[in-house]
């Protein structure tokens, strides 16, 4: 029986893990898509696509801080990230 080679870690999980490592797990450290793009070096449209997918999966949450669109990693998102590291 042949098996497919291991897939790379999906792009959205890379964004999720970077958000987590930056510390965007509480509202006061939440990040805008632009800030995330700057931190991660990923273009902002890709970041937005990833955030949409992560939001659907329940791994990030969209919040508004002073009228700005910001994102934080949820508890389930933190658990997901930690599986990448162990």
């Amino acid at each position, binding site marked *: 029986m042949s098996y497919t080679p291991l897939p790379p870690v999906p792009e959205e999980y890379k964004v999720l893990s970077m958000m987590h490592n930056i510390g965007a797990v509480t509202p006061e450290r939440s990040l805008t898509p632009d800030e995330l793009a700057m931190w991660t070096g990923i273009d902002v449209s890709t970041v937005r696509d990833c955030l949409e997918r992560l939001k659907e999966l329940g791994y990030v949450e969209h919040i508004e801080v002073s009228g700005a669109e910001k994102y934080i990693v949820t508890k389930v998102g933190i658990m997901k990230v930690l599986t990448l590291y*162990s």
Partner: protein
Amino acid sequence: MITWEYPPRVVGGIARHCEGLAKALVSQGHDVHVFTLDFPGTPDYEESGGIRIYRTRSEVGHPNFLTWVLLFNHFIEKRLADVSRLADFDVLHVHDWLTAAAGISFKHFSKKPLVFTAHSTEHGRSGLHIPDSFTIDGFEWWSTFEANKVIVTSGAMKGEVCGHFHIPDNKVEIIPNGIDPSKYDGSVDKGAVRARYGIQPHEKMILCVGRLVPQKGIEYLIHAVPILARRRPETKFIIVGDGWFRDHLEWVANTTGHRWRITFTGFISDWDLMAVTKSADVLVVPSIYEPFGIVALEGMAAGVPVVASQVGGLTEFVEHDRTGVLTYPRNPESIAWGIDHVLSNLGHAEWLVKNAREVVQKAYSWEAIAKKTGKVYKEVAGRKEQT
């Protein structure tokens, strides 16, 4: 005790291990302080069952994984230094490489002995294929080098750690993982639990629990589904857990032609995990790398027949056809055979369960594990600090 995961921050077995060990150490009269990372909704300090838990927030973050690790170690080290003004620790116990930098620094600062538990190695987990893995491997070597004593959870891990890091045999102590069998004592409405996961009364529920990562071998279990279904069309598979590999595993499940038999639950609560484990007909642990395999031990305590890969620490408590069934790793045919073997003879399965429970109660209670760990603490605390 210094650990990157501690409940409710639970990733794999380390959080459960640290919690079980800490509780049992406290019950044996030790004063236990746990230093760990924060988790949303938890206080930065609490006392729980006599355990003092310090959750530290990393005030600075960084997208790079290893930089983040060094940063949180820095903040844990600061917290250790603060608390040490009021508490005089006798021994530092670090669990895995992730918090080793803080532990090693604090060892030199405090002149206290260091115990390091190597729960697994990067070499075993994923091989050394990328630069980050070499760095992690280096951290793991450094931890074993600096430790006054290294604890591993199985003979297989001892061989791996001594061989790979070239450390002397007498520096490494085998102390297995423990579990609390009493958590399975309560009654559960198995029919209701099974119904919740779509299992009809005449169907067999095959359970697999673990992080959805390649080393857990779940891909091979999924490939075993159509093989087993030919012999046993009444089987359904429940896969509990989550991880970065989940999308791939769901894709593999879609290719089997039996997707409807397979349910991925994602993360579930502790109570649900206990209930679903007690309600299963077979627990499968298809790992390709497993330093210990606490999931199998949980299944044995819960009274479920266990079918496990013949790898690592699993072979040290799953005795083939006496306390469970061992199958070849990376081999769907063998996994299907193992499940079928259990389902084919329910009297034999009950005998396996009875033997397994006896083994769990005799050798894997937290009380026994804490006693062994306490002996290690005593031994290193009695020595003059080596720097």
